[in-house]
């Protein structure tokens, strides 16, 4: 008799389960159907990094070429090229490991480095996104807030080159296009 009761109770538990799935069956869907609709919470998403332009000049990055981002990056995905104004040849980033304790900076509390008397020019700033683990150490360690995250969640590509992003070119392109847009707006 006890076993019979137990079996009946078990059957009842199955019926309860069926009731729940039946209720869920008629509830509205909760998935976001991607190509037609996109999720709306990308504002806080942190995709790959980009360079921040100077306030007065949208075509020039804020970067002061202190190399901190290059040095802190755990996967060495940032490549920086620069030259000092007046010098003939540019200096490429040291291809070897730059993990000496003298140059690594954890994150700077936004302390500006000592003023530079020489003028440095940024020649190139590339991000190899396929190596990046989005840890955010570079953004934090930047003393002048020259790097920020993008909300770019939909980056796809078929070749590795797609993920080797020239951030400097990206910044200049964007500046040019906004300028053009502004010009067009003014003309209109």
């Amino acid at each position, binding site marked *: 008799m006890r076993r019979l009761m137990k079996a009946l109770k078990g059957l009842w538990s199955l019926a309860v*389960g069926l009731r*729940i799935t039946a209720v869920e069956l008629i509830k509205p869907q909760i998935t976001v159907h991607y190509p037609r609709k996109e999720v709306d919470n990308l504002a806080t998403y*942190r995709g790959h990094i980009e360079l921040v332009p100077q306030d007065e000049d949208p075509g020039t990055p804020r970067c002061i070429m202190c190399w901190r981002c290059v040095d802190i990056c*755990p996967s060495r995905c940032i490549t920086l090229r620069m030259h000092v104004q007046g010098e003939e040849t540019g200096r490429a980033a040291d291809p070897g490991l730059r*993990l000496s304790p003298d140059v*690594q900076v*954890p994150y700077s*509390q936004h302390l500006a480095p000592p003023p530079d008397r020489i003028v440095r020019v940024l020649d190139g700033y590339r991000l190899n996104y396929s190596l990046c683990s989005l*840890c*955010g150490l570079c953004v934090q360690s930047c003393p002048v807030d020259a790097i920020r995250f993008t909300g770019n969640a939909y980056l796809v590509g078929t070749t590795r080159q797609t993920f080797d992003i020239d951030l400097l070119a990206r910044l200049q392109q964007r500046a040019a296009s906004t300028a053009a847009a502004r010009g067009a707006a003014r003309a209109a």
Partner: protein
Amino acid sequence: MGHDVNEKLTGDFYTKHFAPALSEDGDTLILNIGPQHPATHGVLRVVVELDGEYIRKSEPVLGYIHRMHEQMGEVKTYPQYLPNMGRVDYLHALAWNWAYVGAVEKLMGITVPPRAEYIRVITCELNRISSHLLWWGAYLLDLGGFTPILYGFADRERILDILQIVTGSRLTYCYFRFGGVVTDVTDEFIALTRQFCRDFTQRLPMYRDLVTGNMILRGRCEDIGVLSPEMARRYGATGPVLRGSGVAYDVRRFEPYSVYDRLAFDIPTGQAGDAMDRYEVRMAEMAQSVRIIEQALEALPAGDVVSPDLPERVIPPKGEIYFAVEGARGKIGVYLLSDGTAKPYRLKLRSPSFSNLSLFAELAQGTLLADAISIMGSLDLVIPEIDR
């Protein structure tokens, strides 16, 4: 026309390991479960010797996704190692974050501002719920129930949304820093977390009705893989696996770190130590995590989220340190040996899944194949954590 499948074994070290048993009795079958198998949730391989469907002997084979996390700790500077911690156990990344950050803080004597401590508690517990929810769904998947994982994901997705607000990512968080956390929580975060806690408390009975009370699930879990407290101790099992056997050991209570000693929570335990007890413990733990989060939200003080007197460079003094936190799977320990340079001299990670997996061979002995799958599921293994 080779039908004697045993004879066809090419036989690597592990399968040959089983071969002597074959010669004395031709009735057994050696089966490789994995490295690619739906039930191992990752690249774990288990070699089992089957007598009919009964497991006579089994042995887990590790190393299929060894990524040298410990070695990487020795070639990277202290802050550079941070993103690794989100990838050892991707399901409870923040606990690993915490274990490593906490170890370095302890070694360097950095004090963490109280607001950061509370934020750590809130995010870590949210992460714990999301980890348990995923385990819940995956375990049901092991047992052949397809739908629960999607219900679990619906709730888990909300946690990921909430955690994305502060951490910016959805799975492999790299949020904790030496002396605090990266970003402060926003009002939106607090409101959403409160809302989630309320909703989730109401969702738990649905889980109970759909699955926990289900006769079929109880039949698959009860009296399966009974783990005695003595055996759990012998293998160094921790977390819900240990608590399911009735040992109320929780790092948050017995070696309190952060502000856990100021928060009230129960340590759910089981009695029999079977798969059902481990299951119930995890379900109860989710409710406890909600309780902790609610308290922490109430008590959240104002202030900095990163210690203001942080040294410019993270170079700990010579010395060694061990720091442990309670992860979703058990005790996560980080042992650091510093020689006073910018990189650790030695970094040892104690991962709970490794100890819990070592139970498997003994637990599975003599059980049915289906039970072994159930046992493996109830241990809640995260394979990358085993091969660190």
